[in-house]
């Protein structure tokens, strides 16, 4: 009971702070908009169709996943700020387990990301992405799973580093390769050689595949494999996360 209240307390704090830092909300909504409208429409004008969809629609699921990826991974930097400003001490000295502290933070980060997802889904309706209620629910759940996995990675990195600059550096080495070799921007089925190996071991490949399959139809792997890989990946990331929090 008290552990659940602890998780709730930490989640509530994260949610309130997110809503109060307007720049955070605004910037996280502007960048996916640019991707959809500038990149999607721009590149799309030189490409006829991909797998039967306009390029803008084709990359829509990838952009949504990207937004979740960026927001979730970058969330880990706040743990460094919290620690720098000593806000975290109050939580670390509280009689709640570190697993609960971690869980509260993961939920907080996932909440940030999912608020952006809601916004992007609304935009999707306007650019005529085929979104039915059941598609929206399935996509939402899959994106939540991806977010939990990525927030966990972000927190693992944040918990083990001392400076926000160091965090940004490390996260760029994690984020961009993950994003480029996930199939978010181009279909991975066309790749060959070592690039295809990279895409197969990239957990985000399965996330993108699932979300595209749910929203647009075409997919490379069976959905249960996508979900299983994401779940496995989340569990690993969360276990490392709890261990990292115990050492803080």
């Amino acid at each position: 009971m008290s552990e659940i209240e602890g998780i709730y307390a930490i989640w509530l704090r994260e949610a309130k702070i997110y809503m109060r830092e307007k720049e955070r909300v605004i910037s996280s909504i502007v960048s996916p908009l640019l991707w959809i409208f500038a990149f999607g429409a721009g590149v799309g004008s030189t490409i006829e169709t991909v797998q039967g969809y306009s390029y803008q629609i084709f990359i829509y699921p990838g952009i949504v996943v990207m937004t979740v990826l960026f927001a979730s991974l970058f969330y880990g930097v706040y743990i460094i700020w919290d620690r720098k400003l000593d806000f975290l001490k109050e939580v670390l000295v509280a009689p709640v387990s570190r697993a609960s502290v971690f869980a509260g933070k993961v939920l907080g980060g996932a909440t940030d990301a999912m608020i952006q997802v809601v916004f992007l889904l609304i935009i999707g309706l306007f650019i005529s992405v085929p979104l039915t209620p059941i598609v929206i629910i399935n996509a939402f759940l899959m994106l939540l799973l991806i977010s939990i996995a990525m927030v966990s990675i972000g927190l693992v990195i944040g918990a083990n580093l001392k400076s926000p600059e160091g965090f940004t550096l490390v996260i760029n080495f994690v984020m961009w390769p993950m994003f480029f070799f996930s199939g978010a921007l181009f279909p991975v089925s066309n790749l060959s050689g070592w690039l295809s190996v990279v895409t197969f071991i990239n957990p985000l490949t399965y996330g993108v595949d699932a979300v595209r399959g749910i929203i647009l139809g075409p997919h490379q792997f069976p959905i249960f494999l996508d979900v299983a890989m994401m779940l496995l990946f989340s569990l690993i990331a969360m276990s490392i996360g709890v261990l990292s929090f115990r050492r803080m």
Partner: protein
Amino acid sequence: MHTKTEGSFSREPVVIKTEALTRKYGKISAVDSMNLEVKEGEIFGLLGPNGAGKTTLISMLCTILKPTSGRAWVNGFDIVKEPGKVRKSIGIVFQAPSVDDLLTGLENLQMHNLLFGVPREIRKQRIQEVLSIVNLEKRADDLVNTYSGGMRRRLELARGIMHHPKILFLDEPTLGLDPQTREHIWEYISDLAVKECMTVMLTTHYMEEAESLCDRIAIIDYGKIVVLDSPSELKNQIVTDVVKLKPRIPDTEELKKLEYVRKIEEKDGLLYISIKDASKHLQDLLTHTGPIDFVEVRSGTLNDVFMHYTGREIREAEAEGGFWERMMKK
């Protein structure tokens, strides 16, 4: 109430015990093989100059810093093996500010209630209680980033005592507060200590505070306990009061024979007589000096004790800097 205690020290309820507790940073021993026992209900003061190791000691006792070697128990629980149980027993006000800027004062307290498992029925009442003690009722709904440094400190104090911990750690709790608030807070804390049988371990640079509040004081320097006793004993052993007087017939020979007289200096026809406990011996002293034209007494303070043991002075102005510096940096 009985506490779980380990083996040999179970006769009197000892609630904090350290055994050769050590924390090293590189080659520096911030806390150096410290042995300490604090009894239930005691208000225990840690006094020492900047960098003496007070914060390091408290951080280990409240389980956010691992010792390099040695052991310690808080409320009978091993700080390394049972940190969860230790945390259930304690409240702490950190030296550095640790309230959340983007939450209101009230939200900070509500979060604390949830984190520290205060029962639902009494949460509201506890919040009201502590807000009125630190005089923040009117500002409770404002974001903390609109608070002054002193107000943040008061909020942290409110938070630290809100769940009525069995043991309360206070690291420089009243640094930067106005005298009135300080007094108010100490009144409440000593009250709570009695009512709830709460034990308090505090660090402070305010000598008067340590003197009037603490049952016992440990003077620390370079991570070691230099001396540990009650304030009055400490003063009795080392501190002398100085009686400055102008006798009609200066006769220092007889005065030197008195057992409570430590030292006599003569300057410009005035005698500076260092004696033990002036309040007790002044009358007797005056019977030996004969008629006098003038007398003045300067009481010794704990600061003298500190000087005696460390050869340095604790200067309040320099005290720890940390708190205000950090406030300014934000």
